[in-house]
Every structure is written in C-alpha cells, then in structure tokens.
C-alpha cells in the first residue's frame, strides 16, 4: 500500500514506541548501575577508613610480636564474625611499632608467627617473612602488608578497614605512619 521509502503512520508509532522504551530503560539503568557499583564508589561510606584501637601500648611487650584482634569500623547486621580481624603487632621498643596484616602478600592466607626462629610462615604456598615483615623466601614478591598506625593517649590505633591485597599495597605503603 505504501512504497518502501515512505514511513507509514504505524511504522512511525512503532519507532516512537521503541524510542520511548529506550528512554525509560536508560532512566532505569542509571539507578541500577549506581546501586551495583555502590560497593566500589562509596560502599560503606568512608567509615571503614576510621582508626580502630588495638589496645594499650603497655599490653605489648617490647621486642615481641603478638596477635591482636579488632573489629572493622563499619558493621552490617548480617556480617557475623567476619568483621573481626586479626593482625600481628610488633613492638620494636618504646613507641616504635609495626602492625602487619595476617594476610600473606602472595594470596592472602593467614601467616603465623614463630618467635623462636623470628619468622612468619604461610601455610598455603610456603611464603616466609622476617620479623620486620620483609620477605624471606617463597612465592611472595614483597613483604607483609603493614597497616598505618598511631599512638594516642597510650593507645595504639590502626587504619585497617580494607582487605589488604597487592592492589591496595601501593596505597598502604604510600601512607607514612604518623608516629613511627
């Protein structure tokens, strides 16, 4: 009835209908994408970056390395025990501290401290670190991750709300501990 080059009334309506759907889809896509990416863009606000106390300085004997636990600064109701985290605290002497993540710099398994030989050993792939966290042997390409720490009113506090991974290491290492 119409030749192929002219646009029929129904054809035009169909195209407008498709355009209309496209606009609505785009408008809906925006909140969906923002919801999905919230864990990256803002996530739990910046609450997870706040400083958490590990305990009094006097709880950590000089020259020794002890396991300490802390709770992530941001907790959701369904998190259960997963917000509790462990870290290795080394008191070199006086107010001089090093706070290491338990996560091996290779693939994140929990490393254990052996005071007799002065080594951290990883049970997964056999990474080993010296007492100052530097790499001793095995597959890790670097030393243990260190959390930024500071000492206030006799309390040692750390900034440790994020899972330490090789990607984060650059950021973590860049921050000089204010009181070290």
């Amino acid at each position, binding site marked *: 009835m119409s030749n192929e080059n002219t646009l029929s009334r129904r054809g035009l309506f169909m195209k407008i209908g498709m355009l209309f759907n496209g606009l609505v889809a785009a408008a809906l896509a925006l909140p969906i994408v923002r919801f999905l990416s919230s864990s990256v863009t803002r996530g739990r606000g910046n609450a997870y970056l706040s400083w958490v106390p590990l305990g009094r300085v006097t709880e950590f004997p000089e020259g020794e390395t002890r396991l300490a*636990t802390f709770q*992530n600064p941001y907790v959701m109701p369904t998190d*259960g025990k*997963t917000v509790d985290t462990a870290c290795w605290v080394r008191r070199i002497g006086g107010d001089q501290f090093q706070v290491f993540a338990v996560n091996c710099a290779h693939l994140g*398994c929990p490393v254990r401290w052996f005071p007799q030989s*002065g080594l951290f*050993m990883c049970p997964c792939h056999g990474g080993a670190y010296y007492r100052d966290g530097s790499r001793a042997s095995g597959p890790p390409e670097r030393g243990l991750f260190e959390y930024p720490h500071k000492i206030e009113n006799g309390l040692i506090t750390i900034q440790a709300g994020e899972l330490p991974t090789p*990607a984060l290491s650059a950021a973590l290492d860049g921050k000089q501990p204010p009181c070290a």
Partner: protein
Amino acid sequence: MRLISQIGDWFDRRLQLAAPIRETAEHPVPRNTASWFYVFGSAALTVFILQLVTGILLALIYVPSASEAWSSLQALNHDVTLGWFIRALHGWGSNFMVAIVLIHMVQVFLFGAHKFPRELTWIVGVFLLLMTLGMAFSGQVLRFDQDAYWGLGIGASIASRVPIAGSMIVKLMLGGPIIAGATLSRFFALHVFVIPGMLIGFVCLHVLMVLKLGINEWPMPGRVVKRSTYLSQYHELTKKDGAPFVPYAIWKDLFFAAFILLALAACALYFGPFGPTGRPDPTIIQTVPKPDYFFLWLYALLSLLPPSLETPALLIGPVVAIIGLLLLPFLSGEGEKSWRRRPIAVLTVLLIAIILGTFTHLAGYMPWSPHMNAWSGDPVPERFLHGATAVQRQGALVFQVKQCRNCHSLGELGGQRGPALDSVAVRLTQDQLIRQVIQGGGNMPAYGKNLSPAETTALVAFLEVLHPAGQAPARDAARDIVLRESGTHP
C-alpha cells in the same frame, strides 16, 4: 484408557506439541552414534537437573547471611531429617558435574564434533563449562566456612592483580572493602539466580542445536569434513543408515544416566557431605585453607610458578585458554574428524590431562608448604643422636626449636619445602653449612640474626652428623691443609 487419550487430545488441540515432540524423538540419527561414547552430554544434563532439585531443597533451610550460614549448614547436617544426604548429593553432584562436563568435552573434541557445522554448539559448550566452574567456585563460597573465607581472600588477591582496575574489581567482588555479609549475599545471588538462569538458557540452546544440526556421526578415518559437501553427506547418511533416536539410541543414555545417579548417590551415602570446616572467623588463623578438588591444580600451579611469572600467568593464561577454546572450531573447522588421524589433538589432550593430574596429585600433599607443627611434633631419629656429643645434641635442640624441621625432613618426617637433611653432611662441608644457615639463599631464609654464635656452632655440629652410615661427610681438603700447616688442627 479412552478417557486418558481424550484428555490428551483435549490438551493437544490447545498446545499442539504432540507432533513436534514425536518428530524430535523419532528423528533419524546415524546408526553408529548409538554408542556408549555418546552418553556424556545427556549424563551432564541429568546431573544438572539433580543439582537444580537438590539446590532448591537446600535453599529451604540454608540462610545466606554471614552470621547464620555456618549454623544453618550445621543444622542441615545434624538436625534436619536427611539434610546431610541432600547436602552430600549436591556436593557430590558438583564434583560429578565438573568431571562429566570435562569428559564430554574431551569426547566431543576427539570425535571432531566441534567441526563444521557444529561450531556454535562447541562455543556454547565452552560457556557452559565456564558457568559450571563458576557454579563450583560460588558453591564453595556458600559453604561458608574457613576454607570459603580464605578462598575468597585468595580470589580477591588474584583479582587485585589486574592492572589499574584491580582494587575496584576486588570491591565489586566482595561487595565492600572486606569479606563480610555482603560478599556472601552476592555469591548467593550468583549461585542461585544469575548463573543457573544463564545455564538453563545456554543448555536449551546447546540441546536445540544438537537436534537441529543432528548428532555427530561416528568419525571414520579418511572421511574428511568439507563445508561445501558435509551437509548433504550427513543428510544422506541419516537417510541411508539412520535409525530413530527413540528408542534406538536413547536406551544407552537412559542406562548411563541412571548409573551415574546411582554412583553419585552411593558416593553421597558412603562419604557424606563436604564440610563445613571451622567457623568462618577471621581471627582464627590456625587454618590451612585448601580449595575444592577441581581447583587444586591451580593451587599447586600458584606455588610452583616463579614469582615474576605469577601475575602474567594468572591474568593472561585464562584469557588465552578461553580464546583458544572459542577459536578452535574456526581454526580446525574442516578436515579429519577421527582421532586416529589427529595425533596433535590426541597429544594435546594427553598433555593437558597429565599436567592437570600431576598438579592435582601434588596439591594432595603440598610439598611446598611448611609443616607448621613439625618442629614441636616430629622426633629426631634416634640414629642421629646415638653416641652424639653434648654439642651435637644441643644442635639437635636448636634444629627443632628454630623450626628448621618445618621445612626440612629427617627420617621422612617434617616439611618438604626444603631438601631432606638425612645426608646433608655428605653434600655440604662445614663452611658451606655455616654459610647456608647464616645467609640463607636458594629459597631459604637467612638465620644470621636469629642464631647466637654458640647456637650456630651447635647446629652445624649436629648437621655434620647427618650422613648415612659408611658414607663420610664432605670435607674441604684445602682447608685441612691450611689448618695443618698453621698447627691449629691435628
């Protein structure tokens, strides 16, 4: 009986499905494809349906919350009637599924079924394999225990190695800055909604193409696939030497599917469910996380690769492998189908199988990991202490207390990270021993800062005892001469 057929007719006048279903069931297939080699695809489909059913059953009890998941698994294991059995069926179903999918893939490849015109069937199959592995990994996460928690950490560490976007990918994967409630929830959504939904769609496509394009004929050496002639040849074959799929070929599928289900149920009954291991509490660090069976080879590979190769291998390796699999039907879309005329194909399959098998075997006893309790648990063999001097005995103590035993075995007890030391005195002279202990090297940490001179002396005195009876320890001849001339040595 008449009533049933009347009801059937009533439905069919409205659905109009009887004719196409009968046509599909009775479509002719080449006679020699009614073979026990052609049963793995339908077996995979059977196990997939079992996984859907048992998965839904588990979801009746399971709670996808980081604070409740572990306890709900305990309840399934111990409190709910036969909960343990449904968990065992689902867990063993996962292992069977991966195994059957891999066997199916190898069979398809060796029989040349990926060639023209079934390229897209193969490609969809590659995606089905990836989704099956995705289900296996996300399923391991839902079994929210220590292995799941630290496994997620390993996944995050691998993802974080992606240049630039690494940190972003980790947060997207974990649903936040740490492994927590949001992580489990999103893996639940993946395992229960996203991946199964895609799997069902892709399985339908896969089966549809098998029906439309016809089942791959039995490959004959010398019968070469050409794009121009294959379709008419295949058509002729099914006409001349074809038989209706039902019942001519399907009875073998039915027998094998029932056999697989039976074997799976037997495993579930005999071995029981997998885990859960310890509570997913990150403050419990006395744990040795290990992935499920089908990722053990990766675990081994990550210990054995040189550190500098690790990141490229992790990031580029899978991409190359997947692209290779996707391109395969285009690179070898024509030619011989029979494995008898495709030596490189056979060797490739063998090579990959041997590599994966070897790595999986190695991951079974992890020679690369220190034995965390060897220093306090494994005794020093008596023969090395018999008649030993006080210094040598003191050295044996240093050897144990300084955790040397965690990486070095004596009398086949202890770690295997470093070499066994039963005959180290034959290999290294006194000076070499001292240097190795103090400076380390060759993947051994340096102990210089952790040993007093007295401890080093005692340790090396003990190490010099470690040689088989009748084999003298290594000596530096030049040193003997120097010491004799200077008069400090007898």
